[in-house]
Protein backbone atom coordinates (compact mmCIF):
# COMPACT_ATOMS: atom_id res chain seq x y z
CA UNK A 1 0.00 0.00 0.00
CA UNK A 2 1.21 3.45 -0.86
CA UNK A 3 1.79 5.93 1.93
CA UNK A 4 3.70 9.15 2.33
CA UNK A 5 7.29 9.14 3.54
CA UNK A 6 9.00 12.29 4.74
CA UNK A 7 12.51 12.26 3.33
CA UNK A 8 15.51 14.39 4.14
CA UNK A 9 17.98 12.99 1.63
CA UNK A 10 20.95 15.23 2.34
CA UNK A 11 22.39 15.35 5.85
CA UNK A 12 26.08 15.59 6.80
CA UNK A 13 27.68 13.92 9.81
CA UNK A 14 30.73 15.00 11.81
CA UNK A 15 32.83 13.27 9.16
CA UNK A 16 32.34 16.29 6.91
CA UNK A 17 34.94 18.87 7.95
CA UNK A 18 32.41 21.70 7.61
CA UNK A 19 29.76 19.97 9.76
CA UNK A 20 29.24 20.57 13.46
CA UNK A 21 31.07 18.22 15.79
CA UNK A 22 27.71 17.35 17.43
CA UNK A 23 26.50 15.73 14.22
CA UNK A 24 27.25 12.19 15.33
CA UNK A 25 25.36 9.49 13.44
CA UNK A 26 23.45 8.53 16.60
CA UNK A 27 22.49 12.13 17.40
CA UNK A 28 21.33 12.76 13.85
CA UNK A 29 19.17 9.63 13.82
CA UNK A 30 17.61 10.56 17.15
CA UNK A 31 16.79 14.08 16.09
CA UNK A 32 15.50 13.10 12.64
CA UNK A 33 13.22 10.53 14.24
CA UNK A 34 11.85 13.05 16.75
CA UNK A 35 11.05 15.39 13.86
CA UNK A 36 9.03 12.75 12.01
CA UNK A 37 11.56 12.11 9.26
CA UNK A 38 10.98 8.65 7.74
CA UNK A 39 13.88 8.50 5.28
CA UNK A 40 17.27 9.97 6.05
CA UNK A 41 20.06 10.26 3.46
CA UNK A 42 23.54 10.40 4.98
CA UNK A 43 25.75 12.30 2.55
CA UNK A 44 29.21 13.32 3.70
CA UNK A 45 31.65 15.00 1.37
CA UNK A 46 33.46 12.36 -0.71
CA UNK A 47 33.19 9.69 1.97
CA UNK A 48 30.73 7.13 3.29
CA UNK A 49 32.68 6.09 6.37
CA UNK A 50 29.95 7.08 8.83
CA UNK A 51 27.02 5.47 7.02
CA UNK A 52 27.30 2.12 8.76
CA UNK A 53 27.04 3.83 12.15
CA UNK A 54 23.93 5.73 11.05
CA UNK A 55 22.30 2.57 9.69
CA UNK A 56 23.08 0.75 12.93
CA UNK A 57 21.82 3.64 15.08
CA UNK A 58 18.53 3.72 13.17
CA UNK A 59 17.83 0.00 13.46
CA UNK A 60 14.55 -0.61 15.29
CA UNK A 61 13.66 3.10 15.44
CA UNK A 62 11.22 3.31 12.54
CA UNK A 63 13.58 5.51 10.58
CA UNK A 64 15.15 4.34 7.36
CA UNK A 65 18.70 5.47 6.59
CA UNK A 66 19.87 5.57 2.99
CA UNK A 67 23.67 5.35 2.88
CA UNK A 68 25.07 7.96 0.53
CA UNK A 69 27.72 10.48 -0.29
CA UNK A 70 28.04 14.01 -1.64
CA UNK A 71 30.71 13.81 -4.32
CA UNK A 72 32.67 16.74 -5.67
CA UNK A 73 33.35 16.40 -9.38
CA UNK A 74 36.40 17.66 -11.25
CA UNK A 75 34.25 20.61 -12.35
CA UNK A 76 33.54 21.24 -8.63
CA UNK A 77 29.91 20.22 -8.94
CA UNK A 78 28.33 18.52 -5.91
CA UNK A 79 26.45 15.32 -6.76
CA UNK A 80 24.49 13.25 -4.25
CA UNK A 81 24.66 9.48 -4.44
CA UNK A 82 22.14 7.39 -2.47
CA UNK A 83 21.99 3.63 -2.08
CA UNK A 84 20.02 0.84 -0.46
CA UNK A 85 23.01 -0.78 1.19
CA UNK A 86 26.15 0.49 2.93
CA UNK A 87 28.28 -1.89 0.81
CA UNK A 88 27.25 -0.02 -2.32
CA UNK A 89 28.16 3.34 -0.82
CA UNK A 90 31.46 1.84 0.27
CA UNK A 91 32.11 0.53 -3.24
CA UNK A 92 31.62 4.06 -4.55
CA UNK A 93 33.89 5.33 -1.81
CA UNK A 94 36.68 3.07 -3.06
CA UNK A 95 36.41 4.63 -6.50
CA UNK A 96 36.26 8.14 -5.04
CA UNK A 97 39.31 7.59 -2.80
CA UNK A 98 41.37 6.55 -5.84
CA UNK A 99 40.51 9.92 -7.41
CA UNK A 100 40.74 12.24 -4.43
CA UNK A 101 44.13 13.91 -3.97
CA UNK A 102 45.31 15.78 -0.87
CA UNK A 103 45.40 15.53 2.91
CA UNK A 104 43.09 17.31 5.36
CA UNK A 105 44.29 20.21 7.48
CA UNK A 106 42.08 20.20 10.59
CA UNK A 107 43.09 23.73 11.56
CA UNK A 108 41.83 25.15 8.29
CA UNK A 109 39.01 22.85 7.19
CA UNK A 110 37.88 21.18 10.40
CA UNK A 111 37.93 17.71 11.92
CA UNK A 112 36.72 14.63 10.05
CA UNK A 113 35.39 12.43 12.84
CA UNK A 114 34.69 8.73 12.41
CA UNK A 115 32.08 7.58 14.92
CA UNK A 116 30.18 4.44 15.76
CA UNK A 117 26.49 3.98 16.57
CA UNK A 118 27.17 4.47 20.29
CA UNK A 119 28.58 7.98 19.86
CA UNK A 120 32.17 6.85 20.35
CA UNK A 121 34.96 8.41 18.31
CA UNK A 122 36.74 5.75 16.28
CA UNK A 123 39.30 8.01 14.65
CA UNK A 124 39.82 10.77 12.15
CA UNK A 125 39.77 10.59 8.38
CA UNK A 126 42.96 12.11 6.93
CA UNK A 127 41.87 12.63 3.33
CA UNK A 128 41.09 16.04 1.91
CA UNK A 129 37.34 15.36 1.87
CA UNK A 130 36.53 19.01 1.16
CA UNK A 131 38.56 18.80 -2.06
CA UNK A 132 37.49 17.88 -5.57
CA UNK A 133 37.84 14.45 -7.11
CA UNK A 134 39.39 14.11 -10.55
CA UNK A 135 36.17 12.47 -11.79
CA UNK A 136 33.99 14.45 -14.21
CA UNK A 137 30.22 14.67 -13.66
CA UNK A 138 29.59 12.14 -16.44
CA UNK A 139 31.90 9.55 -14.86
CA UNK A 140 30.38 10.15 -11.43
CA UNK A 141 26.81 9.59 -12.59
CA UNK A 142 27.91 6.50 -14.52
CA UNK A 143 29.61 5.06 -11.44
CA UNK A 144 26.60 5.76 -9.20
CA UNK A 145 24.24 4.06 -11.64
CA UNK A 146 26.52 1.05 -12.08
CA UNK A 147 26.07 0.55 -8.31
CA UNK A 148 22.25 0.90 -8.61
CA UNK A 149 22.28 4.24 -6.82
CA UNK A 150 20.38 7.46 -7.26
CA UNK A 151 22.35 10.38 -8.74
CA UNK A 152 21.05 13.81 -7.80
CA UNK A 153 22.64 17.18 -8.60
CA UNK A 154 22.91 18.92 -5.22
CA UNK A 155 21.59 22.41 -4.38
CA UNK A 156 21.38 23.60 -7.99
CA UNK A 157 20.31 27.08 -6.84
CA UNK A 158 23.56 27.74 -4.96
CA UNK A 159 26.16 30.07 -6.45
CA UNK A 160 28.99 27.72 -5.65
CA UNK A 161 29.55 23.99 -6.16
CA UNK A 162 26.31 23.53 -8.06
CA UNK A 163 25.73 22.03 -11.49
CA UNK A 164 24.31 25.32 -12.69
CA UNK A 165 26.98 27.59 -11.18
CA UNK A 166 29.80 25.47 -12.58
CA UNK A 167 28.36 24.30 -15.90
CA UNK A 168 25.83 27.04 -16.66
CA UNK A 169 22.88 24.71 -17.20
CA UNK A 170 21.91 21.06 -16.82
CA UNK A 171 23.79 19.11 -19.55
CA UNK A 172 21.12 17.39 -21.62
CA UNK A 173 23.07 14.13 -21.96
CA UNK A 174 23.68 13.70 -18.21
CA UNK A 175 21.32 10.95 -16.95
CA UNK A 176 20.61 12.38 -13.48
CA UNK A 177 17.67 11.02 -11.47
CA UNK A 178 16.73 14.38 -9.98
CA UNK A 179 17.83 17.91 -9.17
CA UNK A 180 17.98 19.06 -5.56
CA UNK A 181 17.20 22.58 -4.41
CA UNK A 182 18.53 24.05 -1.18
CA UNK A 183 16.37 25.45 1.66
CA UNK A 184 17.15 28.94 0.30
CA UNK A 185 14.54 28.68 -2.47
CA UNK A 186 10.92 27.50 -2.65
CA UNK A 187 9.96 24.71 -5.04
CA UNK A 188 7.60 27.15 -6.83
CA UNK A 189 10.42 29.65 -7.36
CA UNK A 190 12.73 26.86 -8.55
CA UNK A 191 10.15 25.68 -11.10
CA UNK A 192 9.83 29.23 -12.41
CA UNK A 193 13.56 29.87 -12.51
CA UNK A 194 14.81 26.60 -13.97
CA UNK A 195 11.79 25.06 -15.76
CA UNK A 196 13.55 21.76 -15.05
CA UNK A 197 13.24 18.76 -17.34
CA UNK A 198 14.13 16.57 -14.34
CA UNK A 199 12.22 15.99 -11.08
CA UNK A 200 13.00 18.34 -8.21
CA UNK A 201 13.64 17.31 -4.63
CA UNK A 202 14.36 19.51 -1.66
CA UNK A 203 16.42 18.63 1.39
CA UNK A 204 18.09 20.25 4.35
CA UNK A 205 21.82 19.88 3.53
CA UNK A 206 22.06 19.95 7.33
CA UNK A 207 25.52 20.63 8.77
CA UNK A 208 24.21 21.17 12.31
CA UNK A 209 21.48 19.60 14.38
CA UNK A 210 18.89 22.37 14.17
CA UNK A 211 18.99 22.14 10.38
CA UNK A 212 18.00 18.48 10.16
CA UNK A 213 14.65 18.06 8.44
CA UNK A 214 14.18 21.81 7.83
CA UNK A 215 13.31 20.95 4.23
CA UNK A 216 11.95 17.61 3.08
CA UNK A 217 10.59 15.85 0.08
CA UNK A 218 7.47 13.80 0.67
CA UNK A 219 7.27 10.65 -1.42
CA UNK A 220 4.13 8.61 -1.95
CA UNK A 221 5.67 5.15 -2.11
CA UNK A 222 5.28 1.62 -0.79
CA UNK A 223 8.53 1.34 1.16
CA UNK A 224 11.73 3.24 1.80
CA UNK A 225 13.93 1.96 -1.02
CA UNK A 226 15.89 3.35 -3.93
CA UNK A 227 13.66 1.50 -6.40
CA UNK A 228 10.51 3.03 -4.90
CA UNK A 229 12.00 6.54 -4.82
CA UNK A 230 13.08 6.12 -8.44
CA UNK A 231 9.50 5.21 -9.35
CA UNK A 232 8.19 8.25 -7.50
CA UNK A 233 10.66 10.51 -9.33
CA UNK A 234 9.45 9.10 -12.63
CA UNK A 235 5.79 9.06 -11.54
CA UNK A 236 5.38 5.36 -12.19
CA UNK A 237 2.72 3.01 -10.80
CA UNK A 238 1.07 5.73 -8.74
CA UNK A 239 4.27 6.64 -6.95
CA UNK A 240 4.98 10.35 -6.87
CA UNK A 241 6.32 13.31 -4.99
CA UNK A 242 3.64 15.03 -2.94
CA UNK A 243 5.97 17.78 -1.50
Amino acid at each position, binding site marked *: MLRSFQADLHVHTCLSPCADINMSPAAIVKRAQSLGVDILGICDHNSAENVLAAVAAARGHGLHVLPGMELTSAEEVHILALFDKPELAQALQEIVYRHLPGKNDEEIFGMQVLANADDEVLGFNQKLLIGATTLGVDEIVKNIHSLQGLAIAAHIDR*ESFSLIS*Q*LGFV*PDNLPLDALEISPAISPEEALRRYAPALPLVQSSDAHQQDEIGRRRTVFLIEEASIAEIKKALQQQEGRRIVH
Partner: protein
Amino acid sequence: MTLKDVVEKLGLRVMTVKAALDPELTGAYAGDLLSDVMANARPGNLWITMQTHQNVLAVAQIKDLAAIVLVNGRKPDAETLQKADQENVTVLGTDEPAFRISGQLYRLLGEP
Protein backbone atom coordinates in the same frame (compact mmCIF):
# COMPACT_ATOMS: atom_id res chain seq x y z
CA MET B 1 43.00 42.33 -34.03
CA THR B 2 41.88 39.03 -35.54
CA LEU B 3 41.86 35.67 -33.82
CA LYS B 4 44.56 34.55 -36.27
CA ASP B 5 46.92 37.35 -35.13
CA VAL B 6 46.45 36.33 -31.49
CA VAL B 7 46.96 32.63 -32.21
CA GLU B 8 50.26 33.44 -33.92
CA LYS B 9 51.52 35.99 -31.39
CA LEU B 10 50.73 33.81 -28.34
CA GLY B 11 51.61 30.51 -29.99
CA LEU B 12 48.22 28.94 -29.22
CA ARG B 13 47.47 25.40 -30.35
CA VAL B 14 44.47 25.05 -32.64
CA MET B 15 42.65 21.94 -31.40
CA THR B 16 39.64 21.88 -33.71
CA VAL B 17 39.99 20.92 -37.35
CA LYS B 18 37.62 23.47 -38.84
CA ALA B 19 38.91 26.52 -37.00
CA ALA B 20 37.59 29.88 -38.20
CA LEU B 21 40.44 32.23 -37.35
CA ASP B 22 39.21 35.30 -39.19
CA PRO B 23 36.90 36.88 -36.58
CA GLU B 24 37.91 40.26 -35.24
CA LEU B 25 38.22 40.05 -31.44
CA THR B 26 36.13 42.38 -29.27
CA GLY B 27 38.22 41.58 -26.19
CA ALA B 28 38.57 38.58 -23.92
CA TYR B 29 36.89 37.10 -20.86
CA ALA B 30 38.44 34.75 -18.30
CA GLY B 31 36.31 32.42 -16.17
CA ASP B 32 35.69 28.80 -15.25
CA LEU B 33 32.15 29.13 -13.94
CA LEU B 34 29.88 28.78 -16.93
CA SER B 35 27.04 30.62 -15.22
CA ASP B 36 29.35 33.63 -14.86
CA VAL B 37 30.59 33.45 -18.45
CA MET B 38 27.00 33.26 -19.69
CA ALA B 39 26.20 36.38 -17.68
CA ASN B 40 29.28 38.46 -18.44
CA ALA B 41 31.19 37.48 -21.60
CA ARG B 42 30.42 39.56 -24.69
CA PRO B 43 29.98 38.54 -28.33
CA GLY B 44 33.29 38.25 -30.17
CA ASN B 45 35.28 37.71 -26.94
CA LEU B 46 38.05 35.20 -26.67
CA TRP B 47 37.22 32.99 -23.68
CA ILE B 48 40.05 31.88 -21.40
CA THR B 49 39.17 28.90 -19.19
CA MET B 50 40.28 25.58 -17.78
CA GLN B 51 36.77 24.15 -17.96
CA THR B 52 36.63 21.25 -20.43
CA HIS B 53 33.09 19.94 -19.87
CA GLN B 54 31.11 19.72 -23.10
CA ASN B 55 28.79 22.51 -21.91
CA VAL B 56 31.53 25.01 -22.90
CA LEU B 57 30.50 24.52 -26.52
CA ALA B 58 26.93 25.62 -25.90
CA VAL B 59 28.11 28.63 -23.91
CA ALA B 60 30.46 29.68 -26.73
CA GLN B 61 27.58 29.40 -29.18
CA ILE B 62 24.96 31.15 -27.06
CA LYS B 63 27.34 34.04 -26.37
CA ASP B 64 28.74 34.09 -29.91
CA LEU B 65 32.31 33.95 -28.60
CA ALA B 66 35.23 34.05 -31.04
CA ALA B 67 36.95 30.99 -29.56
CA ILE B 68 37.76 29.09 -26.37
CA VAL B 69 41.34 28.99 -25.06
CA LEU B 70 41.97 26.08 -22.70
CA VAL B 71 44.85 26.87 -20.35
CA ASN B 72 47.21 24.73 -18.23
CA GLY B 73 47.48 22.13 -21.00
CA ARG B 74 43.87 21.03 -20.49
CA LYS B 75 42.40 18.86 -23.21
CA PRO B 76 38.75 18.10 -23.83
CA ASP B 77 37.84 14.51 -24.68
CA ALA B 78 37.71 13.46 -28.34
CA GLU B 79 33.92 13.53 -28.41
CA THR B 80 33.84 17.16 -27.26
CA LEU B 81 36.36 18.19 -29.93
CA GLN B 82 34.35 16.37 -32.58
CA LYS B 83 31.22 18.16 -31.43
CA ALA B 84 33.08 21.48 -31.49
CA ASP B 85 33.88 20.90 -35.15
CA GLN B 86 30.27 19.99 -35.93
CA GLU B 87 29.05 23.15 -34.23
CA ASN B 88 31.76 25.44 -35.58
CA VAL B 89 33.24 26.32 -32.21
CA THR B 90 36.98 27.02 -32.34
CA VAL B 91 38.92 25.46 -29.48
CA LEU B 92 42.50 26.59 -28.80
CA GLY B 93 44.98 25.41 -26.21
CA THR B 94 48.08 26.48 -24.32
CA ASP B 95 50.27 25.09 -21.54
CA GLU B 96 50.38 28.53 -19.92
CA PRO B 97 48.15 29.35 -16.91
CA ALA B 98 45.22 31.76 -17.23
CA PHE B 99 47.09 34.65 -15.59
CA ARG B 100 49.92 34.64 -18.14
CA ILE B 101 47.64 34.28 -21.17
CA SER B 102 45.36 37.01 -19.81
CA GLY B 103 48.34 39.31 -19.26
CA GLN B 104 49.69 38.75 -22.75
CA LEU B 105 46.25 39.29 -24.27
CA TYR B 106 45.73 42.45 -22.26
CA ARG B 107 48.97 43.80 -23.68
CA LEU B 108 47.80 42.98 -27.21
CA LEU B 109 44.16 44.02 -26.98
CA GLY B 110 44.17 46.67 -24.27
CA GLU B 111 41.00 47.87 -22.51
CA PRO B 112 37.95 46.68 -24.45
